C-alpha cells in the first residue's frame, strides 16, 4: 500500500496500554464521493474518545463503518484485535457481541416493553434463566437511574428516558466498548448533561472504552479523555481537550469558538451523484 496515511505515526497512542480500537488508512466512498479520506487513530482500553466535527463531515459514516453497518473500500478497523472491515457477516456478529451502541434516536423496539428491550441481547446471546435475566435487566436499568419502568412501552416514556433505556440495553452484555451517536441530540441541555454524566460514570465504573460522536462542544469537552476533530473526511486535529483548546489549526479554532467562516461550497453535481448512487452500495 502506498497510502501515505499509514506512514504517519498513529495519533495519540498511549504507550503500554492495549488499544481497543485501531483504525488504519480508512477510506469510504458513496458512489464517486469520497466521504472518509484516510482516517487513522487508536483508542486505548478504558479511554473515552470524542469524535467532533461539523454536520456532514462523515462522523456517522465513520461510526457506521466501525460497527460493521458499512464496509469501507480501503483500510482496516481492528476492534479488540479483529478486523471489522474484512470480517464475514458471522464474524461481524461475533465482534458485535463485544460492544454496545447507543443510536441517535435510541432505536428501541416499540413492539417490546422497556424491560424486554434491555433483555433482548441477553436473551439472544446467553442461555440464562428468565429470572436471572430479569434481575440483570433491573440492575442495568438502575445503573442508568431508572426503576419501575420495565413494563412500559418505549412510546410511553420521555425522550431522555428512552436514551437511558437504550444505554441500559447497550451495556446489557457488559461490553468492553460502547459507541454513542450524538448522545445529546434532541434533548434539553439539562437532560443532555445527565446523559453525559452517565457516560462518564459508566465508563469509569464498568471500565469501558467509549467512542462518542457529537457536534456539541460543551458535551465533548465534558466527557473526553481525548478528542479528534473531523473535517471533510479527514482528521485535522487530535489530542486532549486541553491541546485541542490551544490548537492553532484555523479550522479547529473556528469550530471551537463557533466563529463564522466562509460558507462551504458543495458542488451540486458531486453531491447529487453521491445521493443517487446510494442504492448501489
Amino acid at each position: 500500500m502506498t497510502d501515505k496515511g499509514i506512514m504517519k505515526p498513529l495519533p495519540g497512542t498511549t504507550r503500554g496500554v492495549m488499544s481497543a480500537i485501531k483504525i488504519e488508512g480508512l477510506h469510504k466512498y458513496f458512489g464517486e464521493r469520497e466521504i472518509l479520506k484516510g482516517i487513522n487513530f487508536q483508542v486505548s482500553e478504558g479511554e473515552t474518545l470524542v469524535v467532533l466535527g461539523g454536520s456532514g463531515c462523515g462522523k456517522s459514516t465513520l461510526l457506521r463503518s466501525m460497527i460493521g453497518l458499512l464496509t469501507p473500500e480501503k483500510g482496516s478497523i481492528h476492534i479488540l484485535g479483529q478486523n471489522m472491515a474484512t470480517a464475514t457477516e458471522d464474524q461481524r456478529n461475533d465482534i458485535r457481541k463485544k460492544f454496545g451502541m447507543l443510536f441517535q434516536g435510541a432505536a428501541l423496539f416499540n413492539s417490546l416493553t422497556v424491560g424486554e428491550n434491555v433483555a433482548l441481547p441477553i436473551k439472544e446471546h446467553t442461555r440464562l434463566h428468565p429470572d436471572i435475566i430479569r434481575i440483570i435487566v433491573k440492575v442495568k436499568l438502575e445503573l442508568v437511574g431508572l426503576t419501575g419502568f420495565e413494563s412500559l412501552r418505549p412510546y410511553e416514556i420521555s425522550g431522555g428516558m428512552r436514551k437511558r433505556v437504550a444505554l441500559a440495553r447497550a451495556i446489557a452484555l457488559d461490553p468492553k466498548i460502547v459507541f454513542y451517536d450524538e448522545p445529546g441530540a434532541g434533548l434539553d441541555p439539562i437532560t443532555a448533561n445527565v446523559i453525559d454524566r452517565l457516560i462518564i460514570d459508566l465508563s469509569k465504573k464498568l471500565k469501558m472504552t467509549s467512542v462518542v460522536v457529537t457536534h456539541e462542544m460543551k458535551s465533548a469537552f465534558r466527557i473526553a479523555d481525548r478528542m479528534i476533530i473531523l473535517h471533510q473526511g479527514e482528521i485535522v486535529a487530535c489530542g486532549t481537550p486541553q491541546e485541542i483548546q490551544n490548537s492553532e489549526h484555523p479550522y479547529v479554532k473556528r469550530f471551537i469558538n463557533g466563529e463564522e467562516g466562509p460558507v462551504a461550497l458543495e458542488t451540486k453535481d458531486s453531491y447529487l451523484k453521491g445521493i443517487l448512487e446510494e442504492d448501489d452500495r
Partner: protein
Amino acid sequence: MVHLSSFLGAIGKQTHEFFAQIARLSELIRSFLYWGFLAPIEGKKSLRRELFAKQLVFIGNESLFIVCLVSASVGAVLALQAAYQLRQFGALLYTGSLVSVSMTRELGPVITAIVIAGRVGASITAELGTMKVQEEIDALITMGIPAAPFLVVPRIFGLVVMLPCLTILSYAVGMIGGYLVGVVGLHINSDLYLHGNFSALVPKDMWTGLAKSFVFSLIIGVIACYEGLSVKGGADGVGRATTQSVVLSIISIIVADGIFTAIFYYVFP
C-alpha cells in the same frame, strides 16, 4: 446528441436499478431459506417460537372476521349468479356444486390471499419500514442479531401456516353463504343442496386450492418483507412502500393464480 445520451443514461440507470432490486430480493429470499431451513439443521438458533406464535395470533386476529365476511358474501353471490344461469336449463339443483367447486378451486384461495395481502401484508411492510426508518433494524444488527431469523422468518412462516387455514375457513363460510341463499332465497331443498354441494367435490379441488394458497402466502410474505426492509427516507417512504407492497402482492397473486390454474389444468388433469 445531448438528449440521446441523457435518454440512454436514464435507461441505463433504470436497468441498473432494476437489477439491483432483483439482487436485493434474491438476497432476502436466500437469507429466508437459510435461516428458515438450513440454520436449524446447523444447530443455530433460528425461529423464535414466541415471535412466531405472536405472528399467528396477529394474523388470525387481523383477518378472521373480514375473511368470513368476504367469503360469505362471495358464496352468496356465486349461488345467486349460478342460479340465474342454471335456472334456464332447469338445473337449479347444481347450484350447490357450482358454489363448492368454485370456492375451493378458485375463489377461496384468491380472495383470502387478497384480503391478507391488504391487511397483513400492508401491516408487515409498514411495521418493518418504520423499524428501518427509526434505525431499529440497524440496532438489531449491531446487537449481533441477524434481521432475517428475527423479523422475516416468523412473519413468512406465520403466513404460510395461517393462509391455508384461513383458506379452509373461507371454503366453509363460502359454502354456508351459498347454502343460505340456495335454501332460503332460492327455495332449493336443503338435503338436495347439500348433496349437490358435496358430491361435486373431489380431493383434487381441495389440494389444488391449498397448494395455491401456500404459494400465495410466500408471495405476500416475501413482497411485504422486501418492501418493508427497503424503505428509504422517512414516514413518506413507509407510506409509499406499503401501497407498493399491497399493489404488487395483489397483481402477483392474480398472475400466479393464472399460471397455477393452467398448470393444474394441463399437467395434472
